[in-house]
């Protein structure tokens, strides 16, 4: 609430969210948050469950929850009915803010008071007494947000982000009121992604108008950018790839966009290189972070992008695939399995430490070690210039004959082939080796042969990394926040006896 109060004090008339002419101003956002806070207090709700698409209701709910002393809990509305209701049961007792479809699907969950999105925007307090300005809980240790992690490696866990983590993130990454009055940020990531929470806070604090896009579709995104003169965007890599494709198809470029940040999954250098062309006026940032770390911990900014994209040195140019360097106030260390710091260029587990690093789950408590370090369970390495390279999830590590190999480095090698559009590497059971490398490859014409690709991996890495099994596919399975579902590929191949590699 401190962030919104500051924004309203300095920029009360500025539109915080919505169209430039008719959107909700910072003052108006304060008023609605006060109403919602009153409603939450009257119903003694400790959580606000949000079930729906990006819209003006998000910042109203996020700040209203903070004011009312409730945790903001955005849930994945794309889940099946049973999973959605199970999550809602875990979160109740709560006030649920949902679109009409979500309201119908959540109806009858014990301890859930449901209010429809449009009704909430029209009448935030719902007849309760509106909270007074300044009368909000100031406890930095209170839970601000509960986010269910994407669960690519198991059932979703509820990550706990406290006010002090989010406030620290904003203070170390954003300058107050730094946005020009014409700046606008298109918000297309789903509300249940940590980037949505971080983006709302950052935009409000910097004074940049939020333009929500309810349903992501590359054409709708491009049209909204044009209609609203959008200057800033945050995207997950799969969205960026689809937008670049759509712009290529239309033979268009987007000149109004000054800044694009992308992250939250593996991005491919070829997409980034094409993106630099279709957003001719934009600076690019590649952000790496986790839900548990209040989003971004490492960033490769616009200067780096320009520098590495223009370099003739292949090693420097390859740095476009890195995650950049740690944010101010964040430390990153790569460690070997025995806990010692891995040397430059040596792969290990990525650990992070900093005021924004929460590293806590609702049912599992704090995961920080005694020195405050959090193990991301991602593998990667730091290069000689201090750039972090993220190879992938540790759970995805392929162990072949006792040798650990990360899918990321095999994928990176495959992606250096000009015809390879996308690639996923994963382990399949092998009697001889324990696990063997399998890859699924999306290629465009002229499609390379499997032997071409094996030779490429052998030349760039080493023979143990050469895929035993190569499958050409039309596309790879991603979830809606851009995470590759390696588990799906693995189980599909494990279930198929033909894929047993000996």
């Amino acid at each position, binding site marked *: 609430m401190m962030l919104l109060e500051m924004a309203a004090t300095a920029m009360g008339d500025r539109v915080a969210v919505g169209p430039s002419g008719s959107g909700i101003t910072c003052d108006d956002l304060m008023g609605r948050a006060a109403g919602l806070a009153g409603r939450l207090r009257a119903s003694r709700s400790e959580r606000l469950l949000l079930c729906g698409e990006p819209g003006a209701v998000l910042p109203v709910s996020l700040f209203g929850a903070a004011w009312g002393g409730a945790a903001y809990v955005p849930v994945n509305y794309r889940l099946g009915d049973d999973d959605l209701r199970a999550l809602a049961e875990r979160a109740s007792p709560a006030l649920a803010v949902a679109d009409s479809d979500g309201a119908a699907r959540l109806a009858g969950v014990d301890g859930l008071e449901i209010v429809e999105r449009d009704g909430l925007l029209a009448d935030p307090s719902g007849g309760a007494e509106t909270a007074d300005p300044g009368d909000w809980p100031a406890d930095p240790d209170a839970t601000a947000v509960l986010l269910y992690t994407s669960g690519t490696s198991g059932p979703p866990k509820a990550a706990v982000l406290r006010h002090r983590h989010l406030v620290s993130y904003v203070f170390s*990454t954003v300058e107050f009121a730094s946005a020009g009055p014409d700046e606008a940020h298109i918000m297309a990531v789903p509300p249940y992604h940590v980037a949505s929470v*971080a983006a709302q806070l950052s935009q409000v604090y910097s004074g940049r108008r939020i333009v929500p896009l309810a349903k992501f579709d590359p054409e709708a995104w491009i049209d909204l950018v044009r209609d609203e003169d959008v200057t800033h965007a945050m995207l997950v890599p799969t969205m960026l790839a689809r937008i670049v494709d759509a712009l290529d198809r239309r033979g268009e470029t987007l000149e109004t966009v000054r800044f694009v940040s992308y992250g939250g999954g593996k991005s491919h250098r070829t997409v980034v290189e094409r993106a630099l062309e279709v957003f001719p006026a934009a600076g690019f940032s590649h952000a790496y972070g986790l839900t548990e770390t209040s989003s971004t911990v490492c960033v490769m900014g616009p200067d780096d992008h320009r520098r590495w994209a223009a370099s003739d040195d292949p090693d420097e140019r390859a740095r476009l695939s890195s995650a950049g360097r740690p944010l101010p106030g964040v430390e990153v260390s790569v460690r070997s399995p025995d806990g010692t710091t891995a040397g430059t260029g040596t792969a290990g587990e990525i650990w992070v430490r900093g005021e924004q690093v929460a590293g806590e789950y609702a049912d599992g408590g704090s995961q920080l070690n005694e020195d405050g370090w959090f193990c991301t369970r991602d593998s990667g390495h730091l290069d000689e210039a201090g750039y972090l390279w993220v190879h992938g999830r540790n759970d995805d590590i392929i162990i072949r004959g006792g040798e650990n190999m990360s899918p990321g480095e095999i994928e990176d090698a495959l992606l250096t082939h000009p015809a390879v559009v996308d690639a996923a590497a994963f382990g399949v059971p092998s009697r001889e080796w324990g696990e063997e490398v399998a890859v699924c490859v999306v290629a465009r014409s002229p499609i390379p042969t499997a032997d071409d690709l094996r030779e490429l991996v052998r030349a760039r890495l080493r023979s143990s990394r050469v895929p035993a099994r190569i499958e050409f596919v039309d596309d790879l399975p991603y979830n809606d926040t851009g995470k590759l579902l390696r588990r799906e590929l693995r189980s599909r191949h494990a279930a198929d006896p033909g894929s047993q590699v000996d």
Partner: protein
Amino acid sequence: MVELRPGARFQSTVCATEVIVVKGTGPTELTCGGEPMVPAGSAERAGEPSADASEGTLLGKRYGDGDETVEVLCTKAGEGSLALAGVAMAVKVTKPLPASD
């Protein structure tokens, strides 16, 4: 003396100024308007800033000491000015950060 730690919030006792600590730890003599600052919400305002410490604070600005060990951010502006162990704190001119979202 107040105990600094990142995230800790302090208020002036002689004007409306409030700050949050961004950087710095340990016991420190943090003053605003010439009077020691206290934990936010712990005191009512009484009196006026002293004449030699009344240049005011600016909302959202970062203030630091000369050797960059302490940084506070102004979350509410006031008429007093900030000092650390008797030395006026200056507005930090920060280089723009690459936005990450």
